[in-house]
């Protein structure tokens, strides 16, 4: 009757012919209730979630690098403190997500190893370089904006631990997006050179941000099944469209333009039509051939190695104290 806590006790995949279990799983999904870690679930559901949550966690951790690049060069002490808080949040988001993935029966060590071995992906957006301070603005406004668009529906994802982690992440992300918008707004309304810097950053981050929603619906291999399982609630193209519609008026307030000559309002639908996305570039970057892929993984590996002594020291200290306590108790 007793076992490990609900969040931690990995359910064993049942025999596939166990239709009662499958029926109960399908009924839970159909009733819009949540699947919890100890419930029976199809192997493919588990595999899909591990892939998606791990990729999401890795993105948070790798995503610390492009912005970490500017912490020492932030233009004021306040901007620096804010940027540090934001990058720290990203580490925290990575931790929430690794915890959620662990409820599915994988360990964080395994996931870190798979990332460092290049066997699991992270969002392609983090393979672009951050060339100026204005990139901190563009990342907050566009990259975090796109991330929020993706993450809000995930708070209703059918897998309980993932949905709960997303609630926490979404609450914190809105500060990220606003700080980015504010950086751009300040630069855009500053000197001519500052305005130009802001425009340059938006020009470089706009298209990669649209790619963050993933391939178009007719080329997205996992969408249909993920929608049926209520892991995903909207398709890639639906979310992308919503993002464009929100950004266009915001760009006007920033007095910056979006680098798309085909961008125009489609009166009947109220949606903004946008130009062709360069999916070849997307595939190239995803495959490892973006501007910073190698640098990002090398940096992550180095940080992991250089932190080894800290992990070992903490473990040795804990072991020593446990032995001392045992002696006292004896």
């Amino acid at each position, binding site marked *: 009757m*007793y076992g490990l*806590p609900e*969040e*931690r*006790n990995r359910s064993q995949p049942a025999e596939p012919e166990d239709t009662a279990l499958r029926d109960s799983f399908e009924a839970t999904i159909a009733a819009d209730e949540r699947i*919890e870690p100890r419930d029976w679930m199809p192997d493919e559901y588990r595999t899909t979630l591990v892939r998606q949550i791990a990729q999401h966690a890795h993105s948070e951790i790798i995503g610390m690098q492009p912005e970490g690049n500017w912490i020492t060069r932030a233009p004021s002490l306040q901007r620096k403190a804010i940027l540090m808080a934001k990058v*720290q949040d990203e580490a925290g988001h990575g931790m929430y997500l690794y915890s959620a993935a662990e409820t599915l029966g994988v360990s964080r060590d395994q996931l870190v190893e798979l990332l460092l071995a290049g066997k699991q992906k992270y969002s392609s957006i983090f393979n672009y370089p951050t060339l100026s301070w204005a990139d901190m603005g563009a990342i907050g406004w566009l990259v975090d904006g796109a991330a929020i668009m993706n993450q809000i529906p995930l708070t209703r994802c059918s897998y309980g631990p993932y949905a709960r982690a997303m609630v926490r992440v979404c609450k914190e992300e809105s500060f990220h997006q606003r700080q980015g918008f504010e950086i751009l707004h300040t630069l855009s309304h500053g000197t001519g050179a500052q305005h130009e810097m802001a425009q340059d950053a938006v020009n470089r981050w706009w298209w990669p941000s649209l790619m963050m929603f993933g391939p178009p619906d007719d080329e997205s291999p996992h969408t249909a099944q993920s929608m049926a399982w209520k892991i995903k609630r909207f398709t890639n193209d639906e979310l992308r469209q919503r993002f464009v519609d929100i950004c266009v008026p915001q760009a006007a307030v920033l007095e910056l333009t979006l680098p798309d000559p085909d961008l125009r309002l489609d009166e009947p639908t109220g949606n903004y039509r946008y130009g062709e996305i360069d999916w070849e570039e997307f595939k190239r970057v995803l495959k490892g051939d973006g501007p910073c892929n190698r640098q990002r993984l090398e940096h992550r590996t180095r940080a992991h190695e250089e932190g080894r002594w800290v992990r070992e020291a*903490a*473990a040795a200290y804990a072991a020593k*104290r446990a032995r001392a306590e045992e002696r006292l108790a004896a």
Partner: protein
Amino acid sequence: MTSTELRDWPLWEVFVRARRGLSHQHVGSLHAPDAEMALRNARDVYTRRQEGVSIWVVPTAQIATSSPDEKDAFFEPAGDKPYRHPTFFHVPEGVQHL
């Protein structure tokens, strides 16, 4: 990977009291080598925005739970006792303060 790697750090469940007057609530989990580090990590991971005034960390392995497979039988005794709820009882029209 050596034997002192993360993989040997136990898992801890984290409970946070949001403010005085409320009970501690489960917020998530983390790995840490000992209770002290678990508390420090919990502070950094789960209370960056003053979400709490008190934290508990509990070794995950120390928590016993009921099994979902036995859900029905385990909770069944409460299933046929709706009279434990006040709404079970019919109150005649006009009766007050009952």
